[in-house]
């Protein structure tokens, strides 16, 4: 037990654990504080010095629902993010498949061109898209957001799926084809099981991005088609310090996706490395 290197190693391990926990708690702190504040009264929320122990109240959540129709915005968020993700997968998967397994001279150029469309700041297209939405009476509708979310996530999805597909050995697909598998069978029996992880992480990222999207939802929708991101932005108006209610509304807006993210983070991150990890 008195081996100095062993003691030193033990000490290092303790130090690592301590620092890692400190860093994690520090980064998580703003969220933890939001969580606490959501269950405080308005007076407790702005108490100086801050209150750590208090009798939690659910008052804020009732008031948020009464003041603004939370469920309507939540429904819009769910519909726009789920539908745009499914639609995006439907368009992106065949494209990524074609690029990964039938690589041509221009495959790389096409991929880079797709990414470059994503580089263009959304605001560059704000006026035209706004005018188009207005002319086609799509302002403040779910459909407008679904279309825009799908299009703006498409490059990232194609790219992510491509980087997953290209790691699947071609020989496996060829072997299946030799055995007389048709295209559909090849997809369903061979490709799908192998690509499941990649498809899942791409879909997950897309869901998170759409759920949290703020630029288009703020500019194209309001009280009818608005998502939770727009609901929260309405609390930014300087009408006094209602932090407890703000926290409750924020918590209701982020809880679904954060909890969802906790469960899927391993899968998500694996796909996000875009082939950078061999």
């Amino acid at each position, binding site marked *: 037990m008195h081996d100095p290197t062993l003691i030193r190693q033990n000490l290092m391990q303790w130090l690592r654990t301590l620092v890692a926990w400190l860093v994690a708690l520090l980064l998580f702190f703003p969220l933890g*504080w939001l969580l606490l504040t959501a269950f405080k009264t308005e007076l407790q929320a702005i108490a100086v010095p801050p209150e750590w122990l208090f009798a939690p109240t659910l008052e804020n959540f009732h008031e948020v629902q009464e003041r603004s129709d939370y469920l309507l915005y939540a429904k819009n968020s769910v519909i726009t993010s789920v539908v745009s993700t499914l639609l995006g997968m439907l368009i992106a998967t065949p494209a990524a498949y074609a690029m990964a397994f039938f690589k041509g001279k221009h495959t790389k150029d096409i991929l880079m061109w797709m990414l470059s469309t994503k580089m263009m700041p959304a605001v560059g297209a704000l006026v035209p898209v706004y005018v188009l939405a207005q002319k086609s009476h799509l302002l403040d509708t779910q459909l407008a957001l679904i279309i825009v979310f799908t299009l703006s996530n498409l490059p990232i999805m194609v790219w992510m799926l491509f980087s997953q597909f290209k790691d699947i050995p071609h020989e496996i697909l060829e072997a299946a084809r030799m055995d007389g598998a048709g295209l559909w069978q090849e997809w369903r029996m061979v490709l799908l099981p192998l690509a499941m992880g990649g498809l899942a992480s791409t879909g997950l990222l897309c869901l998170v991005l759409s759920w949290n999207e703020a630029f288009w939802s703020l500019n194209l929708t309001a009280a009818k088609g608005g998502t939770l991101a727009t609901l929260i932005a309405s609390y930014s108006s300087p009408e006094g310090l209602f932090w407890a209610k703000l926290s409750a509304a924020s918590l209701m807006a982020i809880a679904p996706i954060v909890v969802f993210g906790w469960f899927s983070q391993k899968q998500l991150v694996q796909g996000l490395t875009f082939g950078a990890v061999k």
Partner: protein
Amino acid sequence: MNRILPRLLLTPAVATLFLWMLVPLLMTLYFSVIRFNLLQPDQIGFVGLANFEYFVTDPSFVTAIGNTLLLLGSVIAITVVLGIAIALLINEPFAGRGLVRILLISPFFVMPTVNALLWKNMMMNPIYGVLAQVWLFFGATPVDWLTDWPLLSIITMVSWQWLPFATLIFVTALQSMDREQLEASRMDGAHYGQQLRYLYLPHLSRSVAVVVMIELIFLLSVFAEIFTTTGGGPGDASTNIAFLIFKQALLNFDAGVASAGALFAVVLANIAAVFLIRLVGKNLDP
């Protein structure tokens, strides 16, 4: 069949993206040379390059370009450096590692509007905010972050959001490192600094490229954080290009000038894209 099928599969994605790019671009080109005020929709006429002149000679323009680049550069630097540091820290097993990982990634899932309001109010409020309390605790005068350090405040919010993303990508990359090589280098008497310089950092270079690329894509157009907190101010202190165009279009109702600005944003995006493609081309050959 082998020729037609891939094209058929590619067409939907290419066609929709092509329209998504081309239609707004052509409309923007058209709007940028006409008089187009959203409040006076009937007064339309060709004005040549007047909108461009107005946008470029607007003193806010140079400030906005500077802010855009500063925001982009700072957030990328902060997230890459701290991300690597935290990744190295949690790379070895320790008690509660799974939980630490979950705590660390959480900010990534928080929507920008919530992120912004949370920091603006509960953290950065000069009287009741947590930071003010911390400052008081150490006997310092609390800072009015959004007024005195607007851009730094935005950088903090955006970095808080993207640090988890960078960290987890680096952690994933570190897990694929060759353990035996590390062990061998230690046997040969390499200290941690040398391991970092010759083993860890080279191994991470590809994932650094990925992180920089993705952040470039998303951070060129930071909007919600500015919209919900500083509104671009005070003055133009925290206005980036994205927000400047938004101000012209929807606050000044001048869609013509906003379109001229949008074309500048396109140029800026293309410069970034060229940079990006060179970066990717080197590090991530598809």
